[in-house]
C-alpha cells in the first residue's frame, strides 16, 4: 500500500494526464455522460455532467438547483419561531440538528440561554439525529457499491431511532421541537431507559456494518486510495464534518467552540483519519456513529432536573444585531448568519449548509477518476439534496 503522499501525487498525475489528453488529443472521441437528475447514486435530483475519455473522467460539473426552495427569501416573511419549521427541511435526514443553530443564534441575539435540562435534551436529540442520518449513509453505501444487505439493516435500525425521536417530539422526520429559550416539551416517561436499549442496538448495527462492509476486501479495494482530497484543498473548498476529518484535519465544532450545549460535559473523542480517500470518509462516519451512541449514553445518565423553558415573552422580538452560529451537523458545518432589525422576524438569514460546500469540490475530485469510482466518491462525500439547494 502506498502512503498518503504517494497517493496524492498519483491523483495529481492522473488529473494532469487527463487534462493533457483533453488539450492535446482533441480528436479522440470524447463522450459526455449525464448522471442523474434521477440516479440511485445522487440521493435525489442532482445531475452530474461528466466528460469521458475512454473510461476516465476528464471534466465533471454538478448541476444543482432542482430542489431550490428559496428558504433564505422565505425566512424574511416569517417570525422567528416559524423559521424552525422551514429549516427542518434542509437536511431532512437529521432535521432536529438543523433547528439548533438557528435557535442558538436567535438566543444569542436576545441574550438568553436555555436552562441546563433543555441544553442536555437538545444535545441528546442532536446526536440522535446524527445517528439516524449517518446510519442510513452506512447502509446506502453498500447499495452504491453493489451490496444490498446493509441498507435493510440500516432501515431496520434507523427505525428504532426515529421511533425515539417521534415519542419525544411528535415528529419522525420533522420534529420542529426546538424553541427560543428551551424546548417544547419534556421527555416522556420511560424514554431514557428505552433510549439506552436502542443505543445498544445501534452499537450492534455499527459492529455488523464494520464486519460486513469495512472488513470486506472488495469494499476496501473500491474505496482505498480513491478520491483522495488533501487537507489543504479540503479547507480551501470549505469541506466540513467527516469529509474534512478524513483528510486529517482535527476540527469538530462540537468541541472547538463554546456553545450552550452539553458536549463539554461528556467524555468523547474526535476521530480523524490521515488518508483523505473515500474509505477514510466512510470509516470516520462509522466511528462517529458509534461515538454518538456513547455520547447519548453518558448524557442520559446526567440529565439535570429543572425547567425546560427559560423565561421568554410570548411574542418574541429579537433585538437589532447580527449573529453567526454554526454547529457540527451530521453532514458537516451548518450555520446561520442571522440579521435582525428588532422585528418579529429576521431581516436576512444566510444559511450555510454543509453539502453545498462539500459538493462544490466534485469538479476537482472527479478529474481523472474512472467511471465506477464516480459513484463511490459521490457516495463517500455524502450529501443531501435539500442541504445543497436549500
Amino acid at each position, binding site marked *: 500500500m502506498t502512503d498518503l503522499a504517494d497517493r496524492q501525487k498519483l491523483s495529481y498525475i492522473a488529473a494532469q494526464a487527463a487534462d493533457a489528453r483533453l488539450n492535446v488529443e482533441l480528436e479522440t472521441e470524447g463522450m459526455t455522460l449525464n448522471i442523474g437528475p434521477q440516479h440511485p447514486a445522487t440521493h435525489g435530483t442532482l445531475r452530474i455532467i461528466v466528460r469521458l475519455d475512454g473510461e476516465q473522467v476528464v471534466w465533471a460539473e454538478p448541476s444543482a438547483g432542482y430542489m431550490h426552495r428559496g428558504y433564505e427569501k422565505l425566512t424574511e416573511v*416569517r417570525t422567528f419561531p416559524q423559521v424552525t419549521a422551514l429549516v427542518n427541511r434542509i437536511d431532512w435526514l437529521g432535521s432536529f440538528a438543523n433547528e439548533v443553530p438557528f435557535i442558538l443564534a436567535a438566543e444569542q441575539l436576545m441574550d438568553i440561554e436555555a436552562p441546563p435540562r433543555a441544553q442536555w435534551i437538545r444535545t441528546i436529540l442532536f446526536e440522535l439525529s446524527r445517528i439516524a442520518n449517518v446510519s442510513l449513509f452506512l447502509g446506502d453505501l453498500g447499495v452504491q457499491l453493489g451490496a444490498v444487505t446493509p441498507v435493510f439493516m440500516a432501515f431496520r435500525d434507523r427505525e428504532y431511532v426515529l421511533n425515539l425521536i417521534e415519542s419525544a417530539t411528535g415528529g419522525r422526520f420533522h420534529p420542529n421541537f426546538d424553541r427560543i429559550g428551551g424546548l417544547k416539551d419534556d421527555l416522556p416517561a420511560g424514554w431514557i431507559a428505552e433510549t439506552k436499549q436502542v443505543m445498544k442496538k445501534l452499537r450492534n448495527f455499527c459492529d455488523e456494518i464494520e464486519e460486513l462492509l469495512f472488513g470486506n476486501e472488495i469494499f476496501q479495494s473500491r474505496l482505498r486510495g480513491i478520491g483522495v482530497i488533501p487537507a489543504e484543498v479540503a479547507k480551501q473548498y470549505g469541506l466540513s464534518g467527516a469529509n474534512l476529518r478524513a483528510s486529517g484535519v482535527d*476540527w469538530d465544532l462540537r468541541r472547538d467552540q463554546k456553545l450552550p450545549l452539553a458536549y463539554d460535559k461528556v467524555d468523547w473523542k474526535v476521530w480523524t483519519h490521515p488518508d483523505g480517500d473515500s474509505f477514510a470518509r466512510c470509516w470516520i462516519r462509522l466511528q462517529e456513529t458509534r461515538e454518538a451512541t456513547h455520547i447519548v449514553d453518558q448524557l442520559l445518565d446526567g440529565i439535570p432536573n429543572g425547567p425546560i423553558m427559560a423565561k421568554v415573552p410570548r411574542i418574541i422580538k429579537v433585538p437589532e444585531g447580527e449573529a453567526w452560529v454554526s454547529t457540527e451537523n451530521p453532514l458537516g458545518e451548518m450555520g446561520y448568519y442571522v440579521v435582525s432589525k428588532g422585528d418579529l422576524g429576521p431581516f436576512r438569514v444566510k444559511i450555510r449548509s454543509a453539502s453545498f460546500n462539500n459538493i462544490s469540490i466534485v469538479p476537482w475530485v472527479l478529474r481523472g477518476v474512472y467511471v465506477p469510482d464516480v459513484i463511490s466518491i459521490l457516495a463517500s462525500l455524502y450529501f443531501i439534496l435539500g442541504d445543497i439547494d436549500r
Partner: protein
Amino acid sequence: MSDDSTVAELPGDALREGVVQALRDALGDALLDSVIVPQRDVWVRVRTDAWRQAGIVLRDTVGCDYFCFLSAIDWMPSPFGRGEDDPTQPAPERDTEIRQGVTGGDTRMQVFARVTNIAKHFGVTIKADVADDDTVVDSWVPVYAGANWHERETHEMFGIGFAGHPDLRNMYLPTDFEGHPLRKDFPLLARLVKPWPGIADVEPLPGDDSEDES
C-alpha cells in the same frame, strides 16, 4: 479517552484584536471599521477595492485557511413589509431608511464572507460595500477555491458581479430569469396575492400579559 483530543483553549479577545491589527498593518486605511464582541466574534469592513487583498491577508497572515461562506446583504427595508398586507387595502407607509448593521457602511448592498482559522479556532466575518451603480467586486476564487459556487449564487440572487470569476452561470434559476430574488425589492408573489394566515400565530391571546409560562 479524550485527553489527547480535547483542545480546551478557546480563542480570547486578544486573538481577535490581533486579527484586526494584522489587517490594519497590511491594508492601512482600506480597513474601514472593525467590531469585536467580547468572547464571541469579530467583524471587519474593508474598502471595496481591497476586498481580494483582504482575503489574501486573512488566508496567509491571519491563518484563516478554511473558507466558510460568501454572500451578500441588501440593507434596503422591503417595500412589501413582511408580506402581511391585505391586498384589498392601499399599502401602508413604511420606513425606507437604509440602516447598515454591524460595522456600518454607505451602500445599499454589501458582500460579506466568513473564514475560519482551524488551528486556533476562531472565525472572522468580513464585509465590503457594493456601490449602487457599479455592482462589481473582485472575485475570491483565486484566494479560496470554494468561493466559486458561493459567488455564482450571490450573483444570481443579488445581481452582484465578481470580476475574475471563471464562470458566473446561474446555479438555481433558468438562464433567462429576470430579476434577483434575494434583493428586497423583488416581491414574494405568493404573499402579495393572498393574505398570510400565519399572522394569527403572533396575535396576543386574550388577557395575556406575557408572563404565563405554560
